[in-house]
């Protein structure tokens, strides 16, 4: 078969059209249509934490029998559980519960941190927030509670985190 591209002007036009189609395909879909991830009147609330809960029970004194079973260099007077409490979190938004979650501790022995991330789309404007967090199964009720009224601009991201060093539940 002859090389048509060398001989026919129509073939040249065809090439230009097909190259043009390739450019159009790439050029158009590399920037169009515009993607609107968030409607213009919405904001985001992100609830996230990575925190190690309290031990599931108190330390206790080892009995003489228990100590005797251990090598001399491992005879600690107190036995403390490795397992940590799961962390429960709740968020009420304008008086309505919007989030309730219990994050299990990580690790095979359930002795690691509990981690959580959740994003919520809310209408921009003023909202009343109540955040509750419980990190100790031994205590009744929630260990940390934070109430706040926030005004969110459109597209603003409010992060609700937990940092014991900053007093517990943080809003940023």
């Amino acid at each position, binding site marked *: 078969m002859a*090389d048509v591209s060398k001989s026919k002007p129509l073939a040249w036009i065809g090439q230009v059209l097909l190259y043009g189609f390739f*450019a159009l395909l790439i050029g158009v*879909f590399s920037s169009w249509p515009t993607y609107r991830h*968030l409607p213009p009147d919405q904001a985001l609330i992100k609830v996230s934490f990575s925190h190690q809960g309290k031990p599931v029970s108190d330390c206790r004194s080892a009995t003489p029998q228990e100590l005797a079973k251990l090598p001399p260099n491992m005879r600690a007077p107190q036995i403390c559980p490795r397992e940590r409490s799961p962390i429960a979190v709740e968020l009420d938004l304008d008086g309505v519960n919007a989030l309730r979650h219990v994050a299990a501790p990580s690790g095979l022995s359930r002795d690691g941190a509990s981690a959580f991330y959740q994003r919520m789309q809310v209408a921009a404007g003023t909202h009343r927030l109540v955040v509750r967090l419980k990190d100790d199964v031994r205590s009744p009720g929630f260990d940390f509670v934070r109430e706040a009224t926030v005004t969110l601009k459109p597209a603003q991201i409010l992060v609700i985190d937990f940092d014991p060093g900053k007093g517990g539940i943080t809003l940023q």
Partner: protein
Amino acid sequence: MHPLRAIRLYALAGFRRLERVFDAAFGSGLNPLRHLGALGFMLFWLLAVSGIYLYVVLDTSAEGAYRSIDQLSRVPWQLGGILRSLHRYAADGLIVVTLAHLLREGLHGRYSGFRRFSWLTGIPLLLLSYVNAVGGFWLNWDQLGQFSALATAEWLDQLPLFGSPLTRNFLGADAVSDRLFSLFVFVHVGVPLLLVFGLWFHVQRVARAKVFPPRRLALGTAATLLALALAAPVASQGPANLVVAPTALAYDWLLLFVHPLTYFTSPAFVWFALTGALLVLFALPVMPHPAPAPIAVVDADNCNGCRRCFDDCPYAAVTMVPHPMRGVRELAKVDADLCASCGICVGACPSSSPFRSAAELVTGIDMPSAPIGMLRQQLVKGLAALGNQPYKVAVFGCDHGVDVRQLTGPDVVAFSLMCAAQLPPSFVEYALRDGAAGVLVTACAEGSCEYRLGQRWTAERLQGTREPHLRTSVPRERLALAWAGAGDESAVHQALQSLRQRITAAAGPMSANAAPVRG
């Protein structure tokens, strides 16, 4: 026929129609649809070269990345911006041609048997290309990069892979540290290195792999991308700001479609869809397939160790080993896993000459399902069966191109071979000496040979530029060549008609009833 196979063949027919549209514009040899793999290689290297420049100017810190890329537009004559745009559009182009390459090979059913290795090593390359492309957006660290990085983290967090959610790396204005940004850089530099290794593996079992398209096609493609970069330069979309969610984004749907899909459905759905698609692609080679034809067999008594089959095998299935009986000579050896049963080696073997005097033609390397000796017998019988027809024509075609058996007629005897290159060129001369007035050899269109190199080797052998060659004493006006794939029957009919007119005219009116001269 299995319904899935029927669907595949129906879709293949549609793809072939599209190829013919491209043939009309580019010619079959330069048809980009027949060079998709090579175009992918070219675009990868274009990305590598432009990427090295971008890496040199990139400030690899979370604070400075956006500024350093944004400043590219201030390079004299906007060369930096053009290069950046070329980088992005080459990435888009790479994905487009890679997907088209996957589609084309899949429609041809090229995923089993000796092609299994190339298929299986090709799928991860597509995945790596996407990973690399997505990671590239993060380095710019504009709002699109911010959105993509966060969307990727949210998607990955669906799997219990990390102790702490990846998304926690993007909470708050100062959350993204230089250390995390170094990870972005590592992804976008490390994955291309994996791609290089992957590409090397991908073509390991292919001899003379086409890793660069024909020059005109390469220049045309590069010029197209350059024109696009000039006409629509890529621009940053404002610096990343983690306290504000990006709202309206000029979005690259070719490379980042997975994020909107994730938010439109769910991360779990996208994981399920991706895993399912990969499983299907990986499972295709192990699905039931028709039994492959028996592989080539070497006859030690007739192999002289000339290495032509070794040179011509498109899949490097032939190696040379010491000949067990002939001292310093070598012997061809066929690797059963690599052999495509195409018969190209038979056409390359000098012992396949039909002029050999042995009553039974046994060659050095042969196909058990269609021995060359049988072809000689069929040719002799076929020409004899045409009786006293004055202008007999012998047609040799290929099982994967136009079905030449439909050309059989009162003056035509046709043979469909496994590949046109299975035909030793001496058979053309033999047919002419044995009563044929003309010979038509047809193979797949240029660049679309089922066995990659069969059409090329056939053309070169018959043109006398490759061994074994057709002797120069053979009158070329009595030989016609037609490179036409399945569905392009008209081209072969036209070539046959043209050959008939030529041999009739050459014979002249006085010899209208004369048989062709025997040599």
